[in-house]
């Protein structure tokens, strides 16, 4: 390692969503179940996926760039899905992958 090569482990959240206009029968089914549970005024339910990962990078932008590349290449199918990447912060030194924050 050289000076300035400091690498930080970031916790990143990738949210994979169905693109607008793509039918979501799961979301529709959940939405239809809500009135029977006495929830009113709750609608537009869309079901996606939340994938958490850690990324080692020099800074947050670097971490976001890597996670976006992972999302584009694997996590989201561009025909029907898009993704949103959020860098949550620096990973706790004692954190393990899979531990609940």
């Amino acid at each position, binding site marked *: 390692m050289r000076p300035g090569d400091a690498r930080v482990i970031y916790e990143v959240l990738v949210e994979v969503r169905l693109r607008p206009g*793509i*039918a979501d*029968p*799961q979301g529709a089914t959940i939405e239809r179940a809500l009135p029977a549970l006495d929830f009113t005024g709750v609608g537009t339910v869309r079901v996606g996926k939340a994938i958490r990962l850690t990324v080692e990078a020099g800074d947050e932008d670097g971490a976001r760039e890597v996670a976006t590349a992972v999302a584009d290449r*694997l*996590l989201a*199918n561009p*025909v*029907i899905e898009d993704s949103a990447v959020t860098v949550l912060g620096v990973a706790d030194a004692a954190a393990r992958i899979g531990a609940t924050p």
Partner: protein
Amino acid sequence: MTARIGVVVFPGSNCEHDVVKALGLVAAGAAGSADWAAAPAAAPAPAVKAELVWHGERSLAGYDAVVLPGGFAHGDYLRPGALARFSPVMEAVSVYAAEGGPVVGICNGFQVLTEAGLLPGALQKNRGLRFLCTTVGVTVCTTRTVLTGATEPGEELRLPINHFEGNFTCDAATLAVLHAEDRVVLRYTDNPNGSLDDIAGVCNQAGNVVGLMPHPERACDPMTGATDGVGLLGSLLEAALRHASLPA
């Protein structure tokens, strides 16, 4: 002349043995059909050898057709076919397809081909959110593909389906291209899963790569109560034999 057909096996594939067996049944049946009876007396009966190809193989050299069978490759984790498309063998499948070799993806195999970008669109969860295990009617929409070359336009077939994510979708521009280029191969006569335009199978521009959700390999033996898959797999055998007779 022997045509070798490679049936790819991913971890989680479960239809590969049915495909191998069905190809053998269809090849044996072809030997007694009228077409072969009309061939010159010296012509040998078609010899077809179907073999399993592990997903780790990087070469498809020597194969005259490739089938990606049904099942749950990689447990359908992330999305059906999402991980299988990165298997080592898929690079070879991509090259093989680009060179015009016959490639057929059945059910999960169709999902792998769309994830790999070798076929357009995507397969989503069935509209009714039910796993469908039933026999459905489909219509042959084009006979210019390696899977339908020996069928009649408009021919109606009854084939088993067995899927939870068989709902074909694509954007309007892609659908327009599929229509313009005659790339819709099969349509459901009574859409069971919400597929766009009732599409049950599509092909690439050249017609050598075909994906379909129904299982033709489950309709090749009278014992299973359906034999309408014989024409489809028979077309594939013919395509394989043509490939086998090409100069090396």
